[in-house]
């Protein structure tokens, strides 16, 4: 796919979503009411992705204060929905309703994984936040789609955040050790070939056992920002360059932005993520004037637009900043590189708690 083709595919998706979310038969009460109050019809005025800036930024509070039923598209009326929560490490958690999106996202992601490192039929283990998170079902679905089963070890990041806030760092270590001992037992005594976890937990498991020696060939990682040096450490030392490290960037609201793991060493472990376009789009914006897209190579705030039938979320400002990167032969749209917490250089953010 060329960049032009990707762009037209995205514009076509935008038109389709405007029609879907702002038509009485298919749209949800929240957006239909919004349209009435706004006094303009996105179906008429939003004809391409460039027109998305006609929407204001999607606000966190809408996903906290509005009833979830108001986000149910009329097309799905009467179908029970899943309720997924965001991490909740930066405030009250947000909730999002969903049906099949997570399956689409992770089936698409599965197509990107190497069969050598994530063997078909291999079992998985997920070590990280389960509970009300989409990831819990998504990783299990990924394992199932690839013909395997999935073991789970839970970690509650909201509790960890509280401990860090109280400076109870010993408790953090003890809780982490509690989680680790469960994970290590499963890895030691079951046939596991793939793992999903967070960077810190991966390093913590690697402190206790040789991950590769226990049969794990592929590690899909997400959850927090990673410096290039940390990515290198995880790949070369924690995984001993024997298992593949696949960093991802994503959340309940977006799905999964993927990286190109085989290119990490030559890129000095600077990770660039590509959104699952056209289902979601990442844009690097000027934090002061968010209608302006930053130039390639420049840092800016990450803005997310989600364009699925189940959920429309225009111009949500993520808590992260990143470098705008050029499209890649494999992904013909902009990437976001070296993601880090927004304002990381100017303020202290409790991030990467798990």
């Amino acid at each position: 796919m060329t960049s032009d083709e990707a762009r037209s595919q995205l514009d076509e998706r935008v038109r389709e979503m405007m029609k879907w979310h702002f038509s009485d038969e298919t749209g949800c009460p929240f957006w239909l009411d919004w349209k009435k109050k706004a006094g303009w019809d996105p179906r008429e005025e939003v004809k391409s992705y460039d027109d998305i800036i006609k929407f204001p930024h999607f606000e966190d509070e809408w996903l906290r204060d509005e009833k979830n039923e108001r986000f149910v598209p009329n097309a799905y009326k009467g179908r029970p929905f899943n309720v997924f929560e965001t991490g909740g490490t930066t405030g009250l958690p947000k909730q999002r309703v969903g049906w099949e999106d997570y399956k689409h996202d992770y089936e698409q992601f599965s197509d990107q994984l190497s069969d050598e490192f994530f063997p078909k039929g291999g079992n998985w283990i997920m070590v990280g936040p389960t509970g009300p998170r989409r990831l819990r079902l998504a990783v299990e679905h990924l394992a199932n789609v690839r013909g395997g089963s999935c073991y789970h070890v839970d970690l509650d990041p909201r509790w960890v955040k509280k401990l860090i806030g109280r400076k109870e760092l010993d408790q953090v270590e003890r809780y982490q050790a509690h989680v680790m001992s469960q994970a290590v037992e499963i890895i030691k005594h079951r046939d596991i070939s793939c793992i999903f976890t967070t960077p810190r937990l991966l390093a913590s498991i690697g402190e206790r056992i040789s991950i590769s020696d226990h049969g794990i060939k592929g590690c899909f990682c997400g959850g927090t920002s990673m410096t290039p040096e940390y990515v290198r450490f995880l790949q070369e030392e924690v995984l001993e360059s024997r298992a593949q490290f696949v960093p991802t960037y994503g959340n309940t609201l977006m799905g999964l932005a993927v990286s190109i793991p085989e290119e990490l060493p030559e890129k000095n472990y600077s990770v660039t993520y590509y959104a699952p376009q056209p289902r979601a789009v990442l844009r690097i914006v000027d934090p002061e004037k968010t209608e302006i897209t930053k130039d390639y190579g420049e840092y800016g705030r990450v803005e997310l637009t989600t364009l699925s039938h189940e959920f429309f979320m225009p111009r949500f400002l993520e808590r992260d900043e990143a470098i705008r990167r050029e499209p890649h032969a494999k992904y013909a749209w902009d990437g976001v590189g070296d993601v880090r917490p927004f304002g990381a250089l100017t303020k202290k953010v409790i991030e990467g708690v798990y």
Partner: protein
Amino acid sequence: MSAPHIPILRQGKPYVSLDVQTIPKLGTDEAAAEISFACSDMIKYDLHKMGDAREALKKFSCEELVEITKKAGEIFLHDDLPIGVEGGMQSPEDYVLALASTSGLPHSLIRMNMKRLGNIFGQIDDIFQGLTRGLSWGVLDKGYGEQGGAPVSFSPTTNELAVILPSNSPAVNALWIPSIAMKVPVLLKPGREEPWTPWRIIQAFIKAGCPAEAFNLYPTQHDGSGAIIRRAGRVMLFGDDSTVKQYENDERIEVHGTGYSKFVIGEDEIENWEQYIDSMVESVSSNSGRSCICTSSIVVPKYGDEIAHAISKRLAEIKPLAQDDPTAKLSGFANPQFAEWINEAVEEGLESSGSRDITAEYREGERFQENAGMNYLQPTIIRVDSFEEPLALREFLFPFASVVECPQAEVLENIGYSLVLTAVTKDTEWINQLFDCPEIERLNVGNVPTNRISWNQPHEGNLFEFLYTRRSFAFAETA
């Protein structure tokens, strides 16, 4: 010479990180060094392998390591040594210039600190004897032996001595140098502006024949320091009172906190106060007042005003000078904001009606000075009416002291903790009371400046007792 790249040292092996920070030469945009930063998890991983580092040291006898230490001292003082990863070499003079460029220390103070460090290497035998009260080095090689006719055995408490080093005084590296001869590897986290001294000492040890595995250097951020503090077997760190409090019940951690060192004169000697002015001036101002062994309070039964004026007149001669001026005694601040914050704290204390800045009458200009792109604080003597004054028992990172009058009989109940206390007196009863006071770490009786210490008597923790623990033992009699 272009800015060297200081790598991480992992059991002596250089590791160039992708997380690189540049330290500029103070007051310029020019790079003094590029520094590789370690992530906290790397340090945690490496800590698991420190047993290997100790094994490397155990291949040597203590006597061999003592000889290596002595030789390393000469090398540190006189030789060209590798710097960075590009094959560059650093002469002793290059070291002085590099450290001055990032720390703000005058060359003269750096040379003085070099000499002090050189003495530590050279006196390693005496230091060990002092720390162990006469133990033979051979006991550490064998694990057991005799001391004073009694059987003794010592086992190490740790595979590594970790030190979170500050940026403000190269001489603090003296604290870990003896660890090598005691066969305990070191894990050092250098201060942001001061990688130079630990790096150079390590290179000197390696050139002298010490196994490189014994040396670990991790420039790192706050979370890396946290990992070291939580995980290492033994940790030395520097901090204020709150840090001391935080770790007071953790036997793994020795905090070198605020010194609150004092110079007191007894009622029997106060009429001779003029004879002690030199000592008081040295106690307040040596090493630019940065050491915890520098006097921060002078306590006298009378003549407080006269003493404050006399010292102030002398201290006013210490001015911000060019760093390469051989007479420079005042250090600039590597972090210029520090000078502003400290100055604000002093000014805030002076708002109290019972505190007066006596040096203001003698010094040129304000306390806070900018000179050649660097911030300085000129020496300051505050005459306070009582211990209740906010500046009476404060310590700052520049030549600063309060002068307070207090009857001799009430001194001990008012002065609190003192890392070093010099008491000028011949009053036996009072001297006995001072020796009996648990809040005094080092006691000098007579006219000895507080900054003059002897390394064979630890003034703040005993390194040997920190790194080794005594066990009882017995061998079954054989037929």
